[in-house]
């Protein structure tokens, strides 16, 4: 996305306003002035032009405004940050508002504000909501594409023309290709299911299963644990609150950044430390959760966590730390004695793999793991001893380790550690999966009911580009199509509902080639607040709103100690012609003759009440929400919070496995899964590195460190940014400067390349090239470089093709994982040179 291409919007966006005039008069430091080198649009804004107010009287947004009074004296309203709870830490925020515009954002001030209390203080992103809502680049009108797709050339149209065009294209697509040719991408701004309900009223669509975050773990863990624990384990509060927890051991987990605000895991990790638990954080970089406690960091080579876990298991098993009788009570396939009949007598147990008496016949000794993980063997022994000697260990993993193509095995290998040491199924422990969250019940994401999808066919949400390119060839056994043996069509109509997904999936050039080709996906509708890398490919582009610009019901989230609900009364007016999805979807439904089924006579607010009241009957059965208020009460109070008792996952099962069996075929934890063995035998794989292992093993996977070459000798991985929620907020100047987009590189690798801290560098491989600022730091293991994902790509594909936005997905591949067909693409090989 070049500056020229973005430029089309600027003239339309920069409008005269009283706020802008105020700013000019006050001569303020330009709150929204583009900074010299960081803004997506490096040129200064054009001079403000005086224009007539919009006819509808919507709030005008200024280029900048100053607060000429004490903003904390303004009236305030309860609101929230952005979206699906950035990593499920949904913070209530207090918005100060004057003359319809936000003047200040303050955090939650209710409840116990002591350090151990439940006050959910927002993070730096929440404190940037003023810039986000009032940004001069907000999309203001519906637009249609007028140049080649992807060229970013649009012109303003009326809402009537927009909804009429979408309705006609929907009808054409259904008549020509069938409902399965329609797909709706996930939303990040406001996951309201308005589009989903519309499509279901029209007969359904091909849905996307899973998500970019933890698609592999979510898909594979039920084979081991059953569906009950879900992809999240025990709440992090287990690590400190009245428990015996004396060790927190985390693999690729960085709650500081991924559960940053609110009373979340970030908060609980700090409390666990102060309550005396020893903390070990295994990661390829000294992630933000180690900051201030660097001695707790255990560096490891990216993508090799399963090798470390297996070697730790070797030490634990061979040194007698494992109570095998206890393990065999709960587990199928730990050793030969509990193997299912189909696999008996073949040395296929987990213990056979670890001890080298089965599978590859290699004992998984610390000496075996050392050159793989780059961790000295004696340190691996030490880590195993820490876990073996812990009275009560809280073992968890982030979702980074599973975002390699070996992730489906890696996440199970890590989960074996608490299982074989008995650190599971009781207070103070975890399942070895991601630490859990507690989310309020009612309408967590401000939705309307999505309805019934009569197509009933799903694809991995990650395989969307493949489904556009060759969905007609998609099968269940090759591409993971669910609900049918084959998809039977390419995706021809795509809703991009508040998502920047093209920016967020591996191999951007490939994505560009597929999306720009109008013969492939014939029609793309995008709804967003801003022009993004993804909306650039829209045929019709609609201006969206935030949760504070409509009536919203938000379920607050914590890592375990409280529950809550927030009602937002739409205290901000949508700017210009921006509208709620529900309203324009209702108009499309009307054109296509399904309005009654779609709206059921309800306004958006009435749907919120409907959703709320559909939960109320359950409150008598669910102790956590027994005091949940009525709709009338929450409308008045806005915020409801309640403490919830501390729980650990799978306690019922471990208390009595016969009485509370899991929903696996055996009713037990399946360390050896016959179902996975069968899938491995019957599914087709293109790459020899891909396979589905019935037990957790270490396997390098596709584009592992083993594929490093002289040309591309460094391994690159990505992590969650602090200043963005994935890609959201990358256009906020204050956040961009506070958390600059940088490539972390160890002095060992930087010195040999003549790279100094702050230098611009080229990061390159066969898929692309990124120019980004270097951060030379000992906080990353040598041989490895890394940067946060989500930076907005800035590429002229017809020019030099170099991304100057610092987007890691330019370099990452798009190869799906073997089972879940999800993204194992957070890492790749590369070279780094000084510019």
């Amino acid at each position, binding site marked *: 996305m070049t500056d020229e291409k973005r430029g089309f919007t600027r003239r339309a966006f920069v409008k005269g306003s009283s706020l802008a005039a105020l700013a000019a008069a006050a*001569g303020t430091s330009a709150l929204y002035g583009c900074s010299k080198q960081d803004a997506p649009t490096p040129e200064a804004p054009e001079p403000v032009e005086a224009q007539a107010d919009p006819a509808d009287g919507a709030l005008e947004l200024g280029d900048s405004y100053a607060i000429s009074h004490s903003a904390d004296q303004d009236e305030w309203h309860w609101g929230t940050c952005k979206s699906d709870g950035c990593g499920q830490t949904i913070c209530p925020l207090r918005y100060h508002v004057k003359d319809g515009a936000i003047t200040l954002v303050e955090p939650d001030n209710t409840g116990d504000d002591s350090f151990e209390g439940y006050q959910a203080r927002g993070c730096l992103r929440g404190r940037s909501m003023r810039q986000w809502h009032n940004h001069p680049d907000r999309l203001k009108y519906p637009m249609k594409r007028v140049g080649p797709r992807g060229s970013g050339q649009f012109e303003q149209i009326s809402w009537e023309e927009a909804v009429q065009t979408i309705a006609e294209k929907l009808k054409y697509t259904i008549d020509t290709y069938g409902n399965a040719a329609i797909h709706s991408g996930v939303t990040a701004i406001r996951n309201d299911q308005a589009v989903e309900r519309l499509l279901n009223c029209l007969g359904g669509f091909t849905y996307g299963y899973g998500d970019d975050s933890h698609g592999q773990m979510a898909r594979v863990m039920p084979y081991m644990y059953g569906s009950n624990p879900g992809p999240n384990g025990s709440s992090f509060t287990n690590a400190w609150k009245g428990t015996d927890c004396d060790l927190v051991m985390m693999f690729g987990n960085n709650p500081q950044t991924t559960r940053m605000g609110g009373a979340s895991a970030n908060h609980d990790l700090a409390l666990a430390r102060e309550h005396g638990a020893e903390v070990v954080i295994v990661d390829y970089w000294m992630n933000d*959760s180690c900051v201030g406690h*660097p001695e707790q960091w255990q560096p490891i080579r990216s993508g090799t966590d399963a090798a470390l876990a297996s070697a730790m298991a070797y030490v634990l098993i061979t040194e007698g730390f494992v109570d095998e009788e206890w393990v065999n009570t709960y587990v199928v396939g730990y050793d030969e004695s509990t193997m299912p009949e189909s696999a008996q007598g073949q040395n296929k147990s987990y213990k056979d793999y670890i001890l080298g008496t089965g599978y590859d016949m290699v004992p998984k000794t610390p000496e075996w793991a050392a050159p793989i993980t*780059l961790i*000295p063997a004696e340190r691996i022994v030490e880590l195993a001893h820490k876990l073996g000697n812990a009275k009560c260990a809280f073992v968890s993993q982030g979702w980074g380790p599973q975002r390699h193509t070996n992730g489906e095995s890696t996440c199970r290998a890590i989960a074996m550690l608490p299982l074989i040491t008995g650190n599971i199924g009781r207070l103070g422990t975890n399942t070895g999966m991601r630490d859990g969250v507690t989310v309020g019940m009612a309408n967590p994401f401000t939705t309307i009911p999505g309805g019934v999808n009569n197509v009933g066919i799903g694809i991995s949400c990650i395989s969307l580009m493949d489904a556009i390119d060759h969905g007609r060839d998609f099968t269940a056994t090759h591409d993971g199509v669910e609900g049918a043996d084959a998809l039977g069509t390419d995706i021809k109509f795509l809703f991009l509902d508040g998502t920047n997904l093209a920016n967020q999936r591996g191999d951007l050039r490939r994505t560009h080639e597929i999306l720009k080709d109008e013969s492939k996906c014939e029609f793309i509708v995008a709804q967003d607040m801003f022009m993004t890398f993804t909306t650039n490919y829209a045929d019709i582009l609609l201006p969206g709103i935030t949760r504070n610009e409509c009536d919203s019901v938000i379920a607050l989230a914590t890592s375990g100690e409280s529950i809550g609900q927030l009602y937002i009364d739409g205290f901000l007016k949508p700017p210009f012609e921006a509208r709620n999805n529900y309203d324009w979807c209702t108009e499309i439904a009307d054109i296509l003759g399904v309005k009654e089924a779609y709206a059921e006579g309800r306004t958006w607010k009435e749907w919120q009440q409907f959703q709320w009241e559909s939960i109320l009957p359950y409150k008598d059965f669910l102790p956590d929400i027994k005091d949940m208020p009525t709709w009338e009460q929450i409308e008045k109070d806005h915020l409801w919070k309640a403490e919830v008792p501390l729980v650990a996952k799978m306690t019922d099962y471990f208390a009595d496995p016969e009485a509370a069996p899991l929903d696996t075929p055996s009713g037990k934890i399946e360390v050896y899964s016959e179902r996975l063995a069968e899938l491995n035998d019957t599914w087709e794989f293109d790459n020899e590195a891909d396979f589905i292992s019935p037990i957790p093993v270490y396997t390098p996977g596709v584009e592992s460190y083993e594929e490093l070459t002289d040309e591309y000798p460094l391994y690159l991985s990505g992590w969650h940014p602090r200043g963005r929620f994935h890609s959201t907020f990358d256009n906020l100047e204050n956040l961009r400067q506070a*958390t600059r987009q940088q490539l972390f590189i160890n002095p060992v690798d930087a010195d040999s390349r003549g790279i100094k801290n702050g230098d611009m560098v080229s990061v390159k491989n066969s898929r692309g090239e990124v120019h980004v600022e270097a951060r030379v730091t000992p906080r990353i293991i040598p041989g490895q470089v890394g940067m946060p994902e989500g930076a907005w790509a800035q590429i002229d594909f017809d020019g030099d093709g170099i991304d100057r936005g610092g987007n890691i997905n330019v370099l990452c591949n798009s190869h799906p994982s073997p089972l879940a067909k999800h993204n194992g693409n957070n890492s790749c090989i590369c070279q780094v040179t000084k510019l």
Partner: protein
Amino acid sequence: MTQYGFYFDSSRCTGCKTCELACKDYNDLGADILMRKIIDFEGGAWNKGADGTWTTEAFGYSVSAGCNHCDNPACAMNCPTGAMVKDADTGLVSSNPEVCIGCGTCVQSCPYEVPKLDTAKSQCVKCDGCKDRVLAGGKPMCVDACPLHALDFGKIEDLRSRYGSVSDIDPLPDSSLTGPNLVVKLTQAAEGAGSKGGFVANPLEVA
């Protein structure tokens, strides 16, 4: 006079910058001016073993640094116009925009690099300890913002009796220079970090 000051707990700070952004929101600051800043201080060597494995003494911690409303504020003492004043009642140091001519002497004088020149206003600006909030019985915006309660604010004698008297942490300048009203809790990694090859790892973020 009641002297107010800040407390900073470097064992809780994760460098998340919520304090920075909350301050910017409250004080209407753009990307170019920081009144409170997060300094990332990092260092430590890497050692390769014979088998190719790595061990390290790498360290990293963050310092949330604002104005310390010093006993001997270099900014005020060097201000040629008398715009920069230490308040007689609270000990908070702030600049009077009616008097400030934006000469930048305070910017040059402060060893903590706290005052900033706002070129758009042609004035020097700095943290005033959220004096209005404090006088109304509250705490500064940054203190109330910290998700991990790593900051506190209050009468300096109360802070010292509660948290101790340490006011030096690398890479902040020696406290003997200006007598900062700052109490610091040193995390383990911050003990002698300056002598272990530590450096400011994010100079472009705190410029």
